[in-house]
């Protein structure tokens, strides 16, 4: 069974093979090491001229890649830990994301920044964050999150070759080892495309042969897996029937699949691993409230506690949202539902 890591590596390999303009840059990405999380393993052996190891210079390499994208290449930058993406913010926000618009549509900047986000590995406060919310709502910048739904390698391939804007590609660390969801083989749930987004699709997961769902779970990345586990438990153990909408494109947000779902279920639970305040869930909830008005009867957000991510396993577990937190929030909404 293919895991997310293999899929991502093969997506990169395919992009390098298909288009000579693709260039990879990053720290420690050369063989035999192949990157801190091994996503680039084998690539420098196959394409030594186009897989380039860099100094520890996230700001510099992102600026360099922006210049390369401006002049005809399609650079892919690996930021070793998502926490280090803050070092690349100026290049990304003030140059890469602005150039196409600021130069009146005369240029394009097809630049992809890949980075592993998230905790649950005990790496502590500066190597465990989910910082993608900092990048949401920046005009000209796309944010896409891989998950084990669909084919994350294809998602990455499309980010590199089938769109022309700067794009932050978020890979949760725990996804790497997860097998891709094989919907055909799943006995208790189905997965289908939701909405009409073609390049970065959304997915809808629902229980087979279940009553109409009364709750929408919204998630992305690794939280989509925890939400999937919660969805199954809710059905079998609580008789709460939910459907899960998994987004891959986080920004700009196309809320259509969520709006469609919530208009049927009336209840929304957003699930993310970053801290609660001003997060992705807040934006999703605001969109649903604005568009659906009274059709949205109740909503909650599941997210991390508002502290840095601790190193100690027990502390980290108590800080980051897990399946029980999702179940608890769903029951709270369910209680309101049954009043």
């Amino acid at each position: 069974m293919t895991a997310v890591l293999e899929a991502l590596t093969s997506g990169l390999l395919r992009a390098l093979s298909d288009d000579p303009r693709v260039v990879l840059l990053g720290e420690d990405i050369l063989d035999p090491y192949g990157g801190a999380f091994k996503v680039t393993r084998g690539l420098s052996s196959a394409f030594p001229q186009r897989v380039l190891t860099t100094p520890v210079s996230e700001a510099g390499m992102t600026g360099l890649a922006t210049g390369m994208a401006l002049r005809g290449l399609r650079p892919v930058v690996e930021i070793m830990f998502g926490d280090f993406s803050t070092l690349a913010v100026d290049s990304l926000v003030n140059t890469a994301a602005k150039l196409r618009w600021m130069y009146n549509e005369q240029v394009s900047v097809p630049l992809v920044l890949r980075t592993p986000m998230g905790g649950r590995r005990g790496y502590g406060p500066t190597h465990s964050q989910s910082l993608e919310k900092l990048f949401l709502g920046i005009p000209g910048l796309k944010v896409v999150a891989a998950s084990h739904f669909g084919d994350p390698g294809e998602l990455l391939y499309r980010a590199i070759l089938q769109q022309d804007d700067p794009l932050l590609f978020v890979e949760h660390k725990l996804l790497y080892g997860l097998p891709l969801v094989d919907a055909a083989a799943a006995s208790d749930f189905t997965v289908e495309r939701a909405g009409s987004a073609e390049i970065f699709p959304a997915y809808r997961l629902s229980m087979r042969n279940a009553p109409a769902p009364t709750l929408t779970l919204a998630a992305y990345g690794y939280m989509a897996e925890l939400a999937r586990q919660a969805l199954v438990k809710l059905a079998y153990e609580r008789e709460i029937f939910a459907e899960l909408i998994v987004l891959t494109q986080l920004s700009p947000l196309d809320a259509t699949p969520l709006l469609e779902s919530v208009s049927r279920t009336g209840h929304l639970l957003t699930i993310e691993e970053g801290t609660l305040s001003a997060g992705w869930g807040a934006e999703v909830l605001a969109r649903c409230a604005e568009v659906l008005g009274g059709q949205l009867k109740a909503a909650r957000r599941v997210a991390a506690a508002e502290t840095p991510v601790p190193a100690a396993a027990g502390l980290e577990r108590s800080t980051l949202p897990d399946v029980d937190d999702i179940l608890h929030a769903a029951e709270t909404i369910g209680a309101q539902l049954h009043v």
Partner: protein
Amino acid sequence: MTDALDLYRSLVLIRRFEETILAEYRRGAFSGTTHTYLGQEANAVGVISNLEPDDIVVSNHRCHGHFLAYGGDPRALFGELMGRVSGVCGGRGGSQHLHWRNFYSNGILGSTLPLATGIALAEKMQGRQTITVVFAGDGALGEGSVYEALNFASLWQAPLLIVIENNHIAQTTPTDQAMADSVAGRLAAFGIPVREMDTSDVSEISSAVQPLIASVRQEQRPQALILNTARFGPHSKSDDTRPVELVDELRQTRDPLTLHGRHLKPDLKNEVEAEIGALVQAAFDQALADPPAGGVL
């Protein structure tokens, strides 16, 4: 090699353009902000007049002189500052954010060094013979991304000419209050050959830059040129805190138009001044009459 009269033409174009900007800001023709190139004209003209048509120029917030020396249309630049549809970027970018052909500018100090290094490397990787010139001021040397870029440029042999225009003042702060040690030392630390000059004579700059450009093109590696220079105007529109006598002295001793004009016949010189004066006025009038971007005036 551009002839002496053409060099003068370019110097006068930048001077008249910038004088018009400052005068017309006061009269309300422009909004927002601007940074004029008064006093530094010889740098842009001396360097850019030696480039090939496909070479690339990356510039900063003080970009009007570079843009005009590159051959940019004064009407489009006036239009950009006025927010006209005819502007270089349709009024979206304004004074600091210009792109036309192979000219790029951005208003974030220091950000242009990594950008230019990436541009130069992309050109090299795609087998083009172009070189990239990046202009930065002494103020930008306080930004860390500059040093990451210098490291990359030297390590990866970018065909890049780095031109540091040291006007000895960053907005209102004298450089000696902001910079330890020397500009040359910073560049040399990365193994980038440095040529340093202290002149406002366009011919001297032009002669000095030719071998540097040839070397960047042939050897496909970076070179640096430090041009010690003098800013005659305020940083922006009216924020000059220097004593008037100091600026007057700079104007007396460091004016590129005076220094280069000495070598020209007075009647030819006058002819150029009249020609360029009329050209700048016409460009201003045309831009003023052009429709506003977004339809609101």
